[in-house]
């Protein structure tokens, strides 16, 4: 990778982590700031490579991590949040394309260590942009297209997904030369479930506003770039710390509580969480892919046979409430449940420009929230920082509106 380019990206990271570190929710956050700082060259990937392990790059949340771990490989999510890498994609990607995909492709073209270390990239066919990204990447790295059904409701769709899981298992076994047996799968499921449990425990503390949203979202985001066991341990330590500390809870006592939903907010484009919390609100819950969406439910094993465990893993992946599935009832139900459980005052619906999946669900979501007497602020933006002031105007007005209602 060109040195200056890498330096530029690292500077973007440092800028954000420094800002976050000025008012951290807890001391334990320093681990995550450091982790985020190394997101172009994660330590655990280097170690894995040194041990001769294979690295499987993924996008989205629908590639079951358990399978990768059970095969003895190491997963890493490649969804990029760098605005600077988008310029590289002019000509290849249409200007109106989702910035996440453009940024990820641009990042790949710059070949940072995180990309160079991938032996294969597994891309789920969730949205059109990702599908075509897979095609673009296949010129540079072996790509596995993981076929995700467009609906979860039909038996045929679930059966097809089940077959895809088996295929993925075989592909992984061929990659690592290691058979995925029951014991390996059981261990991998346990590791991943523990990771999810740690996140749920963190979110329980978010109900009491014990951690700023900008920090909690970073904790969740970094889980995709770290060794799962290590991350779980650190997150449990963080939970133990913030359960004792009152600083955030007291500061956030009367602030409007927001639910963040919609297109993912990917580090280091952190303007939205920062804006919200600078404007006097606190994000207490979310269902974004870089946040709780992928880590909410555990893999529920009903049959401890190999096929049973594969089924459990597959169905868990399918239970992720992504708008790539039609109908979107599951996602709307999840949003309603979250707004109730986390006692939110308003919803921040974030749509990345070009993201039609989230864009088209916005009205339905807003209508559903209106039934609960919850106002929604729709924010359409991209990775550039130019519209920060305009976003600030809207967010401030929204937070003020929520505060006034809260005072009554």
């Amino acid at each position, binding site marked *: 990778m060109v040195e200056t380019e890498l330096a530029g990206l690292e500077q973007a990271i440092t800028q954000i982590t420094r800002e976050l570190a000025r008012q951290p929710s807890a001391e334990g956050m320093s681990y995550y700031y450091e982790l985020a700082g190394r997101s172009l060259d994660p330590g655990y990937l280097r170690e894995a490579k040194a041990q001769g392990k294979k690295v499987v790059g993924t996008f989205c949340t629908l590639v079951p991590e358990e399978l990768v771990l059970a095969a003895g490989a190491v997963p890493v999510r490649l969804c990029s949040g760098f605005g600077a890498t988008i310029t590289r994609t002019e000509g290849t990607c249409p200007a109106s394309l989702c910035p996440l995909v453009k940024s990820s492709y641009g990042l790949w073209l710059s070949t940072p260590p995180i990309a160079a270390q991938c032996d294969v990239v597994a891309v789920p066919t969730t949205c059109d942009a990702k599908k075509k990204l897979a095609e673009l990447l296949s010129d540079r790295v072996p790509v596995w297209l993981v076929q995700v059904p467009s609906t979860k409701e039909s038996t045929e769709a679930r059966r097809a997904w089940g077959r895809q899981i088996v295929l993925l298992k075989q592909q992984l076994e061929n990659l690592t030369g290691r058979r995925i047996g029951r014991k390996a799968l059981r261990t991998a499921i346990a590791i991943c479930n523990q990771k999810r449990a740690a996140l749920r425990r963190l979110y329980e503390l978010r109900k009491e506003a014990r951690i700023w949203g900008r920090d909690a979202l970073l904790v969740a985001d970094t889980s995709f770039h770290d060794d799962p066991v290590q991350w779980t341990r650190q997150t449990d330590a963080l939970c133990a710390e913030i359960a004792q500390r009152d600083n955030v809870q007291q500061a956030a006592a009367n602030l409007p509580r927001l639910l963040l939903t919609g297109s993912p907010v990917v580090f280091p484009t952190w303007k939205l969480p920062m804006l919200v919390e600078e404007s006097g609100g606190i994000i207490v819950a979310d269902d974004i892919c870089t946040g709780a969406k992928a880590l909410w439910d555990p893999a529920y094993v009903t049959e401890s046979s190999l096929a049973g465990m594969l089924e459990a893993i597959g169905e868990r992946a399918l239970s992720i409430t992504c708008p790539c599935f039609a109908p979107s009832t599951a996602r709307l139900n999840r949003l309603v449940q979250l707004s109730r459980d986390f006692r939110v005052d308003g919803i921040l619906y974030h749509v990345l420009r070009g993201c039609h999946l989230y864009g088209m669900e916005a009205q339905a979501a807003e209508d559903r929230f209106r039934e609960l007497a919850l106002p929604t602020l729709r924010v359409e933006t991209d990775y550039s920082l130019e519209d920060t002031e305009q976003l600030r*105007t809207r967010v401030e007005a929204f937070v003020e*509106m929520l505060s006034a209602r809260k005072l009554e």
Partner: protein
Amino acid sequence: MLVCGVDVGCMFTKFVILRDGEVAAQHIMESGVDGAAGVDEALAQLLASLGATRADLQAVVTCGLGRRSVEPFDKVVSEVSACAGGARVVCPGARTVMDLGAHGIRVAALDERGRVASFDISDKCASGTGCFLDIMSRALGVEPLEAGKVALCAKNPEHIESMCAVFGESEVVSLVARGKSREDILAGLVDAVARRVASMAKRLGGQQEVVLVGGVAKNPAVVTALERALGSPVRVPDEPQTVGALGAALIAHSLVGSKAG
């Protein structure tokens, strides 16, 4: 008790000073490039006319694009909240507040208690804003402040769809070349603005009473066109441009009140 509200827009900065809750003085000046210095000076002059100084001010609340540039301030608020509060006072019973400023359109729907229930902001491009109307009228050789009167004289208003402030200029020139009158073109532009604002208001409910504030509210053609587009009467306060600053000043007043009591 002396408090001040400052609405720092990108073209104009508005001041309202309240003494014991009543409007004591107000002032509109061009924002210019002096930034904070210009604001300080104007404020000092305004206070002097009341026989007071900056030290006598018990609270300053700012809103508008440059709200954080006026130091020191006690609180910043969004224009949405400020305009809503100000409109409610000058027109009690206001349920829809439309703020047409130089660089943005803000519409808020208020509940029966006068609190903002929902809002919409259009400020990513200049289409439909005061700036747009100013550029267009200058392109037609009409002084922006006269544009309203000229538009009201139109016999056959043009139907204009595109409202891009940059490309609109060339469109206007081509219309003139086709022999369209200034009055008709201006009326068409005003209609386009009215349609845009009306659609924002309708999406939020458009409930009576509908109040128009902001600099553009001084344009009589815009008011008439809006009433037509909304199908309901539109009230314009006597001083529409300072309503935002008034709202900010009222918030300053309640800040002092809550500190005391």
